[in-house]
């Protein structure tokens, strides 16, 4: 059992941050790695990146967007309550080498995944440009933490309520044009965003890392559910990734496979909402 010791709602309750007591995992966690969580006996195994960790206190931080049944169930868990299972750290850590100038692009909850990587790259002695974006000002997360993790922070909103009015790709292109010596880009967010960022960086010939989020089950390379095509080769994102060279990723295949269970996901979420709203459920909130 893994206790929640701190909980915060962000982006108008659509994104939740939990600090969870998991000393063994905290001692090992590196930027880019993830954990798999299950709320209870009947729960699905849900992969979430560790946005931060505190080995001294034995804590890990997850930040997730509420998109379906399992994340909605996670949202009901309050401080002092428990996740039944937390497994990790899983996946390969990011290589935080000094390459000079880097640009980090994060969209939506991808910002949370990006944060420890940007911070690590800065600590490694790189000059870090960061671009973060969301649909609207209210939905933007972690501005302060990203500011501290970057040398220069740019903000974009789709509706223009804050920062640049437009997509993160605009600022990415602008920065790459201005600073021809940027050696590495890291882009993390929804699949379409990563795909378009990679198109831009490819034009500039800048090596680009992305973090892929295919559907997973075990997270140990046992099932093959998380298979993605990288440069024409089958790779398992849970053990070979989740980070890959963005210019090699078959985005269309990833996008299709993410839609595997659309019908079932709706059934599950609708049932949860019905139970939860009617007071029949025992989640305590």
């Amino acid at each position, binding site marked *: 059992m893994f206790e929640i010791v701190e909980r915060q709602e962000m982006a108008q309750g659509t994104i939740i941050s939990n600090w969870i007591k998991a000393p063994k995992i905290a001692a090992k966690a590196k930027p880019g790695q993830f954990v798999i969580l299950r709320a209870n006996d*009947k729960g699905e195994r849900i992969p979430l990146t560790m946005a931060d960790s505190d080995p001294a206190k034995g804590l890990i931080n997850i930040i997730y967007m509420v998109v379906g049944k399992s994340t909605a169930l996670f949202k009901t868990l309050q401080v002092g309550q428990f996740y039944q299972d937390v*497994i990790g750290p*899983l996946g390969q850590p990011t290589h935080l080498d000094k390459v000079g100038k880097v640009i980090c692009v994060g969209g939506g909850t991808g910002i949370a995944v990006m944060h420890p990587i940007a911070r690590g790259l800065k600590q490694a002695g790189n000059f870090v440009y960061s671009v973060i974006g969301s649909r609207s000002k209210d939905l933007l997360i972690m501005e302060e933490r990203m500011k501290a993790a970057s040398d220069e922070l740019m903000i974009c909103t789709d509706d223009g309520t804050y920062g640049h009015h437009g997509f993160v790709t605009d600022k990415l292109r602008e920065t790459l044009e201005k600073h021809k010596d940027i050696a590495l880009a890291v882009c993390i967010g929804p699949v379409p965003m990563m795909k378009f960022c990679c198109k831009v960086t490819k034009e500039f010939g800048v090596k680009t890392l992305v973090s892929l989020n295919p559907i997973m*089950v075990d997270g140990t390379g046992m099932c*093959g559910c998380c*298979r993605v095509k990288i440069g024409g080769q089958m790779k398992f994102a849970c053990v070979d990734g989740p980070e890959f060279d963005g210019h090699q990723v078959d985005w269309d*295949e990833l996008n299709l496979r993410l839609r*595997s269970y659309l019908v079932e996901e709706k059934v*599950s979420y609708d049932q949860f909402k019905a139970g939860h709203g009617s007071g029949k459920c025992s989640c305590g909130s």
Partner: protein
Amino acid sequence: MSEEVKAPKKEKIPRQKMPEQPANVRRHNFEEVPNGYTPELAMKEAERCIQCKDPRCRQGCPVEVEIPAFIAKIKEGDFEGAIRKIWEKNALPAVCGRVCPQEVQCEGMCIMGKKDAPVAIGNLERFAADQQRKHGRDILPPKAAPTGKKVAVVGSGPSGLTVAGDLILKGHDVTVFEALHLPGGVLIYGIPEFRLPKEIVASECHYLERLGGKIEVNSVIGRSETVDELLEHFDVVYLGVGAGLPVFLKIPGEHFIGVYSANEYLTRSNLMKAYDFPNYDTPIVKGKNVATFGGGNVAMDSARTALRLGAEHSYIIYRRSRDELPARGAEVHHAEEEGVEFLFLSNPLRFLGDDATGRLTGVECLKMELGEPDASGRRRPVPIPGSEFQVKIDTAVIAIGAGSNPLLTKSTPGLDLNKWGYIVADPKTGKTMKPRVWAGGDIVTGSATVILAMGAGRLASNSIHDYLTMGW
């Protein structure tokens, strides 16, 4: 030998069948297929054993269970005596009675099988174990005084459980580390409920805990802790991590939605209980037309799971013929009874799918014929040119074998691996090239059987005990 055949002949009792759910009922539910013997049936079957002086059945058993001795106890109605006899050699009889390939082991050797049907040794073993679990006294075997030595067992499949059980009884302090959220290995995530109820696996694991062992689930060794880190806190480490790597067909279209590795399909259904979705949260594609590729136990389990998930057609597509099917006889028989359709001598070429939705719509195969025997002694399938044909399917399950998962081995310097990535260990002791590290089961032999994994565990536990008590 001849003397045994001439042993006093009373009335001839036929081999007793276990009552089972009718095929048309069971193909729609996940409950266990055979219900097991009643005490009367078991005692009647036990009478069929002629108590050979030099029992051949025992030679056929990889862990040499005292078969005639336990059967004699059943015959007398001393069921506790029977289970105690079995336990001397086999710690997981409820499991083995259900899943061992008896027809090529004990029963395959049984003298009665020469003229008649062999004694139903597997059914009797299962009976003794079930009887004990359901009605027996709560007995725990005697345990040696604590030695103060600490043992880490990585992986909670049959081989890890065997090592743990043996060493706990010998007084060592044992902790089992398991990557998944439940212990049991393939017994919990792979073999379906209708063949091996999960309650049995849970009770075996619980038994270890009652003996004083610790089981730490959610521990992916190589990630959460490395083997070298374990060696700092433990005197020895046993690696029983299985052959957990899915093998794909490597044909076009394997990315389509609805194409599963058997590991994923069975894990979703068994471990995550997707058959009970949405009561459980994990979904699975409940195909109407399902094809399983392969011919072993894993393929039979997948095809029979598909039926129970509601398939109208569940095909097994296998490149050789029925005679070469490597699955247990009982599984093939049950699959046929339940209506699994076999397409023999067929090899898949490519999956067909809808590029807009990403969903699988069919598979194109090629007909094969049997040629000369290959290295395995089985006749090699050869393609018949121009014999392509298509099958309409919405779900495919690939069950053509497993490989060695590199997660642990790659993070453990000093282990010797063979060319397929399996750990090299001494077949007599389980010792690896790395000091204080033993290994056994599927991660050493490649995919094998429950009883062979347990046998390897037994050899290793003896060797580990020698090392811990005598220092070699």
